[in-house]
């Protein structure tokens, strides 16, 4: 194994490139997932999330760079690695003439193990009828088949590619509960998503991918430090020239009410400046993941 790879990580990707003909789907991607964490993998459609996952599953062959799963090569050691993981595809295609129950059992057994008690529990929690033929399931129900099958397997790593697409809000909540349970049991989860609320609710760390490159990695906390707080302030007298202060963005003002964003490193100076105008009320809100996310894509559009 190369010395650049951290062997304590469950999953480690360095400078990964995957080309389809001339098209570069992955262009130097880095991603690492440590044991026991729920790692969010975020990006817009076509950013390369599914391609990354397919390389990690040994379904696609990398063009260059490194991809390591449990310190093994996902392409060469696919079979032994797959005993240790369960995969929920983004688009679940099932055999039309098998029942949902048969598909659940089949995948679990091909993986190696099926926890019968958990299977029963999960079917109840997700309200899935396992006697229906797969061709009669809606998209959400097909998704449930894949989720139930994966969660009924006892493995170390769960790789989920937009797992909750097609689920209704109630089922989305059930799904989030199940992922928390996995985390409590010490399992590792790679969760690709574009539902930001889901990632915000579940993930310990997040990697944002755009056009085949990772653009940001870290905990939500770290992300917030890098960016801006939103400040809403009411003062006794109007503040002139607030908009011109260093680090202030998206400034809006109505009478004595002002709302704006401020760079984190300018916060101290700004609060001192505001104090001169007699603060009556002040709220400061950390940025939501959505804001962080949007910022990356808005930046792209400006370029």
């Amino acid at each position, binding site marked *: 194994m190369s010395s650049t790879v951290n062997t304590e990580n469950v999953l480690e990707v360095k400078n990964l490139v995957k080309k389809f003909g001339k098209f570069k789907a992955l262009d130097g991607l880095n991603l690492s997932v440590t044991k026991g964490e729920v790692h969010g993998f975020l990006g817009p459609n076509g950013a390369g999330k599914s391609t990354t996952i*397919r390389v990690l*599953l*040994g*379904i*696609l*062959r990398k063009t260059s760079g490194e991809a390591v799963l449990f310190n093994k090569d996902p392409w060469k050691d*696919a*079979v*032994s690695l*797959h*005993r240790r*993981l369960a*995969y929920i*595809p983004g*688009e*679940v*295609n*099932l*055999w*039309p*003439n*098998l*029942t949902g*129950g*048969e598909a*659940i*059992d*089949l*995948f679990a*057994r*091909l*993986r*190696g193990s099926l926890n019968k008690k958990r299977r029963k529990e999960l079917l109840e929690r997700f309200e899935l*009828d*396992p*006697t*229906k*033929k797969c*061709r*009669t399931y809606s998209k959400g129900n097909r998704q449930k088949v*894949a989720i139930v099958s994966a969660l009924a397997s006892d493995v170390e790593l769960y*790789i989920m590619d937009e797992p909750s697409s097609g689920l209704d809000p109630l089922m989305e909540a059930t799904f989030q509960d199940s992922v928390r349970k996995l985390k409590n049991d010490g399992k590792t989860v790679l969760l690709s998503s574009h539902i930001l609320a889901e990632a915000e609710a579940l993930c310990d760390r997040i990697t944002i991918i755009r056009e085949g490159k990772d653009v940001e990695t870290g905990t939500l906390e770290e992300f917030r430090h890098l960016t801006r707080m939103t400040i809403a302030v009411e003062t006794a007298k109007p503040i002139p020239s607030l908009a011109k202060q260093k680090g202030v963005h998206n400034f809006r003002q109505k009478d004595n009410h002002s709302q704006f964003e401020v760079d984190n490193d300018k916060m101290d100076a700004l609060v001192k400046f505001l104090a001169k105008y007699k603060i009556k009320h002040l709220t400061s809100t950390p940025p939501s993941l959505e804001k962080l996310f949007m910022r990356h894509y808005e930046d792209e559009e400006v370029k």
Partner: protein
Amino acid sequence: MKGLTGTWQLLRLALRRDRIKMPIWILAITAAMGANAPAVIDLVGESRAERVLYASTTAPSVVNRVFGGPIHGPEMGSIVMNETFIFTAIMVAFMSTLAIVRHTRQNEETGRSELIGAGIVGHHAAQTAALLLVIGANIILFGLLSGALIVAGLPKEGSIATGGAIAAIGITFGMIATITSHLSGTSWGANSLAGVSIAVVFVLRALGDSTGKIVNGGLGVESNWPSWLSPIGWGQQLYPFSENNWWVFGLFGASFVVLGVVSYAVNARRDLGMGIIPDKNGPAHAKAGLLSPLGLAWRLQKGIFRGWLIAMTLMGVVIGFISEEFKDLFTENPEFAEFLGEGSDKVGFSDFFFSAMMGFMAITLAGYATQSLLRLRSEESSGHLEPVLATKVSKPAWMMSHIAWTLVGSVVIFFVLGLATGVTYILITSGSWSELTDIVLASMVHLPAMLAFIGFVAFVFGFLPKAAVAVGWTAFALVYLMAQFGVILDLPQAVLNISPFAHTPAYPASDIITKPIVSLASAFVILLIGGIILFRRRDITTG
């Protein structure tokens, strides 16, 4: 008509999707009749004596009545009809049914229709666009086939009637496929039902023709009533080159009206995505037998296997049945033996007959190998394979699980074909059971060639995944056409030798020689290993 809004746009979409497929079908069908007509004329000979000889030996033959139809007299056109019509009619039936299912049920199954249906598109637009496509293709075929027959030197009126009959059969089956697409919830089911309808129509007229009366002084056949229940039979009852019964087209017209009314009435009532035949619920838990790559592959392969097994058992019984009548012709009519080809008089009847028949059936069974193995590709392209490979199943293990069933299936089907033929033959002729081994061997001797063909398709799957379906079926069509028409078309032996089936010794007419059998088996092993290695090394591609 609000129900038809958007038909024109959908037709353009269908034309765009089929821009390569349909022209290939149309050209292949035109070639099947157009290229064979002059070859048949050449082979039979144009003098009246030669034509009378052909008609007098053909009319009483049940084999010919089943596979060729009712000959009507010694006219050259009737002879060409007899040699080419049924084959062409079956091809046009498949072209039309596959196209209709592709543009109706398959769209629903893949969810494309939902997207289309949400646009400004009427309820009947999809079905109508598919029908217009098929009607258009058949009208083009009408022109090309009539033209080809006229160019071959046949009378104008008869040529036009023949081309028209083929086109009318194509449209009839297109309309039948709109109904099978309503009945079944899957395109596989809709195609299967349409295939069954083609088989039923073939068998109905085979029954009517084989039980018909000899007329025209021994030169013609008057079919029994079951032929009149079959659209392919109607085409033949036109007797294009002798009577030109134009009124028979009225039957086609009436069937268009009936099928159309039924199909549109069902279409107006049916929910999108659902079949009329309801989906039953199944087991909540998988049986242990399903829970392995081999078990899953069996589940996906057993329908194909059963269909072919039933068809080949029936064919075996039919071959056994007709063998007696063939035997009489063979022993009583030396000219007939001569007509069958060089050397046929030197070996015993059964040796000659069974080696020829089993040779033909073996090539038909290459279709089983193709259909069964291309399941590999459809599993990959439909996205079913990806989650399977994300488990501990390895790529070679998955690939071999399907190929294993193709191999087992081939052995069983070849064995049962030989057995059904032999048992029927021995019962019918009160023959000796000692002949059974030879007849079963006559079928099984083709297994090495089948293996080589299986190896080829497996290799193509590993090497050219996206072209695998096209290459696989084209290879089957070429092998089939070379065997069917290679001699008539006088193709050089080097070309005929491309087919693995050309290397099988014609047992029991000739001895089993080990050399070609060993070479064919080695070709299988090399191609199979190559296919697996290439598959291991390549990406999985969907869509």
